[in-house]
């Protein structure tokens, strides 16, 4: 499902990733750990088609990202990947359900309203659909972000320290949710984290940046 070959990423003279290889099968649930500055976010950005590697190949669900022209990358982001960020990055002015619909807005989101509602109840936010991000706790906001990542039903979920800003209990809830997505929906999930507890709950662990 996710394959990297001889991946390399340098910022100026700083070599963040070099000769990095990875192969994750469909349905994997994998943690990405390593010291701060080790390149976790960098790797996730490359896998999520937000950034390009300096060298090497990335194949995502059969699509070779490195061969993909810049203008077509948005389709990969839309169809293949759901992103969850440490800081949630919801749009403050929009209600929870509107935030969930955001990925579909350019293509007309009217028909997806019900799906947004059912995703919100799936992440445990039934009854809070009309709240704005400011009226939700961090953990709840992160679960809205997870629902947003699921809207267009991508096979892959990339989460960059999804529990980094949450207390232990909320963090555990978010991880339980990710595990369910993995087990019940068969999503391939890669979670970058500093938390050994979070890493321990995953099927496999990849270490970056020794």
């Amino acid at each position, binding site marked *: 499902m996710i394959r990297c070959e001889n991946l390399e990423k340098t910022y100026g003279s700083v070599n963040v990733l070099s000769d990095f290889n990875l192969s994750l099968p469909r349905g994997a649930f994998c943690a990405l750990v390593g010291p701060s500055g080790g390149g976790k976010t960098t790797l996730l*950005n490359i896998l999520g088609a937000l950034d390009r590697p300096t060298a090497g190949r990335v194949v995502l669900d059969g699509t070779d990202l490195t061969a993909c022209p810049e203008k077509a990358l*948005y389709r990969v982001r*839309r169809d293949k990947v759901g992103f969850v960020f440490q800081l949630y990055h919801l749009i403050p*002015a929009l209600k929870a359900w509107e935030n969930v*619909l955001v990925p579909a807005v350019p293509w007309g989101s009217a028909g997806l309203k019900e799906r947004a509602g059912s995703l919100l109840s799936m992440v445990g936010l039934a009854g809070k659909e009309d709240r704005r991000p400011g009226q939700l706790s961090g953990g709840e906001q992160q679960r809205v972000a997870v629902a947003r990542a699921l809207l267009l039903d991508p096979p892959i979920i990339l989460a960059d320290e999804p529990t980094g800003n949450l207390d232990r209990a909320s963090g555990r809830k978010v991880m339980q949710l990710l595990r369910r997505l993995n087990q019940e929906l068969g999503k391939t999930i890669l979670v970058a984290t500093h938390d050994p507890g979070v890493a321990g709950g995953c099927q496999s662990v990849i270490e970056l940046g020794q």
Partner: protein
Amino acid sequence: MVRDVVLGRRRALFLLALKNVLRKKAVACLALLGVGLGSSLIIVLLSLSGSLNRNLDRTVSALAGKLVVSPRDALFGGIFFGSGTPLPPGDLATVRETKGVRNAYGRVSASLHPADFPDLVLPFTGYSPEEIQAAAGTPFAEVVRGRAPANDKEIIVGRRLVDTLSFLGRKLAVGDTPSFQLPDGATIDLRVTGVFQTGDEITDTSVAGSIGLARQLASLPQNDYSSLAVRVERPDEVLPVEQSLLAEMAKSDPPVQVVAPKNLLDPLAASTKAVDRLLLAISLLSALGSTLFISIIMSITVVERMKEFAVLKAVGWCGRHVTTLVLAESLILSLAGTALGLALGCGGALVLGRWLKPGVPAWPQLVQVAVLAVLVGTVGGIFPAWRAGRVAPALILHQG
């Protein structure tokens, strides 16, 4: 694009744009005011220039095919205040016999001085009974309120003069009998029996009455005239008839001049065009100002929201979608601002209209302004929208 919006494909995008605009109320108000003031200025200017042109057009067409024969010492070719040496009745006969002349009438011009305000000079023209009988287009035939004068003690006042006087705080209404000073110092009471409107702005700024009254006011001998109004057979014959009149009357005493009032207006038409161009230039500058204003405001908000755009890209939007979103926001702001400007501008035009008679701008002008608004929004939004669409998602997300 419009079909997409109506059918809902782009509706979500525009709804989101609308929500974004409403999100920052202070910024939206600022943009609204900026564009609103700019476009209201444009509307007021357009309506002024429109009325200027309308008045001129009306006057020019009312004067087409007319000539005035007057003593050479009369001011302004004798078409404003008849003055100068009076013309003997023989001149009228000569003019009538000239080829190409359909008809000619003697007129007497004078000035009216209100007894309570002798420094005010109101131009007065006395029309002969023949002209009143025969000719359409004289004040007597164009009374819009009240009735035409029936004797030497009655007058009618031009619509334009009534407006001007009322602006000066001097009401002159049908039924009034104001007193006027005669040249010998005595006063005479004249009854206002009506208001006329010929469409020719010059005539409409004067008072009309019988030729007898005019002779009394100007102390002119019986049978003498201060000018002769000439109508030619065909409007395009004005020039040749002018030439033949000059030839026929070369030896007459006092020496005369022949003037086509329309030609006198040519410099006025030219200056109106110049004013028009000036107003247009100011309008364009104002539109440019609005465009810059929108552009600056949108740029500021775009810089503030770079992270948001990066997130939109991360969840699957492409650069074009982000660009469209920002353009839509800019368009919404400029359209709303223009709507405000239309309200302000039409209000302003109405207020100004109490003095200048510009009226509300006509439909084509409002359409022009609306098109301008779309242009302002689009052009002003292009650069910020382009920048928003180009944001690199990874770069922004790295920074927090």
